[in-house]
């Protein structure tokens, strides 16, 4: 049996890396690096879930770790990397409203904001410090994902921002509310649908219906052929 205190220490370190990956999604310009950051973030979440299973022993947490690993670490990143290959956009260098440096400074503010607001909400609840902080990280992750959605210009980056927001919700659920497992499964299915829709939007956002059909045919997104 591993010492729970040691495991909690490891979870704390993972918290920092989860926040760093969110920071990277906000500030990186290279699309494949953003995707890698998202994959790492999801993997960290799966690891947190697994560690919580080791502490608590609830099999639901283990299932959740497996689900996260399968969908968000393997399936969704695979889809998105396929889209990235097809649309031939390597970088997202345009930002609206906020530059990445400002966004990062703002994120620190957001973390403090979620800490102070949650500490008022959870005042009377018998929640251990680690679990409370997990909720804070979850909420800040959601807010940081929102920051990505509105400060980025490309559809594909916005989608990644949304996915990172969902990671925040999962984190919040892990530490505070315990969502029923079926809802987690539904959320993952939603995410996969989202990614598929993004495929459609990412290649055709700027075109009319006729042009769009032409584009999808040329890029052969659905048939899987090589782009010429």
């Amino acid at each position: 049996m591993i010492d729970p205190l040691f495991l909690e220490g490891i979870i704390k370190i993972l918290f920092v890396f989860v926040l760093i990956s969110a920071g990277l999604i906000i500030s990186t310009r290279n699309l494949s690096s953003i995707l890698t950051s998202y994959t790492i973030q999801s993997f960290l979440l799966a690891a947190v879930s697994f560690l919580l299973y080791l502490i608590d022993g609830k099999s639901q947490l283990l299932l959740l770790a497996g689900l996260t690993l399968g969908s968000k670490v393997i399936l969704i990143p695979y889809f998105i990397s396929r889209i990235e290959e097809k649309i031939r956009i390597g970088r997202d260098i345009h930002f609206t409203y906020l530059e990445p440096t400002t966004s990062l400074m703002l994120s620190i503010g957001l973390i403090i904001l979620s800490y102070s607001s949650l500490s008022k909400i959870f005042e009377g609840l018998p929640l251990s410090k680690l679990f409370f902080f997990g909720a804070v990280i979850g909420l800040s992750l959601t807010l940081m994902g929102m920051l990505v959605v509105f400060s980025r210009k490309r559809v594909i980056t916005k989608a990644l921002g949304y996915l990172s927001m969902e990671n925040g919700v999962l984190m919040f659920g892990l530490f505070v509310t315990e969502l029923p497992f079926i809802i987690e499964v539904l959320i993952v299915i939603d995410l996969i649908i989202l990614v598929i829709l993004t495929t459609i939007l990412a290649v055709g956002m700027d075109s009319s219906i006729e042009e769009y059909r032409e584009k999808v045919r040329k890029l052969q997104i659905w048939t899987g052929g090589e782009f010429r």
Partner: protein
Amino acid sequence: MNTSFLLFALLNPLFALLAAPLYMSLIRKVKAYAQGRKGPRLFQVYYDLKKLMKKEAVYSPTSSWVMRFTPYLNLSTLLVCSLFVPLVFVPEPAGGLGNIIVFLYLLALERFFTALGGLDAGSAFGGMGSSRSMSLAAVIEPTMVISFAALAFVLKSLNLHQMFALTAGKILPISPTLVLVSISLFIILIVETGRLPVDNPATHLELTMINEAMILEQAGKNLALLELAHALKQFLLMGILINTILPVGLSTEIDAGKIAVSAFLFLLKAGLLAIIIGLFESAFAKMRLFRLPAFYVMAFFFSATTILIEVFA
């Protein structure tokens, strides 16, 4: 002042002064190997310093006392700094020595005078280097303060001697947070010593240099002192990082055998760190100057989240 401290005040700066240039060479050697070259000899920096010491100093006609004074001030500041970082053994605390805030201010003093020295010669490059160095310092100094604050918070002391007395001899870092603090300290080490991806120590290309530009006009003996001060700064920052993450072997008693083992182990650990720095430098390309603030803010974000989690969770 007690005898333990007097011995420390004698041994520690001497050890730092003698060993520091070795790691400048070692990093160059590792970089050379990574590029498929053989590289300079391991003691090349010592030979260079000896050669420079014999040469006369040449001054620009527009320069004032600042340029003559800076090399001596820098070296003496860093020698005082070397009293703050226990390398061979941890002495009993004495006076205010070891205070982390004084340490940070001493480093700032050194940086300030290097920048002034760069301006003083009146050449365009020096001014450019100083201007770059100062504007980047405005971003990296908060990061430095926060990282050292995190270190102070985790080890429950403002005094470097007390902090390292707590960690001394342990095989693993005493708190997982120290691993995170060490990553911040590593970034600070890279930035403060002007290494890739921030600044390239091996170039004299006017578009990219920051640190080299400031000492471009210095010659002879003065240049040797500045180079030595730079090596010493790197060695001390390496010392803080090593004592934080891998304090194994650091002695807390005055015993000739233990001190010798401690010094030897320190040389080994510093060698390992120097190899890591060399490989790190080889793996990265120089960043564009205007992208640097984003990198620094990322480091700031990292240390800020570390301290937030350490304090609140």
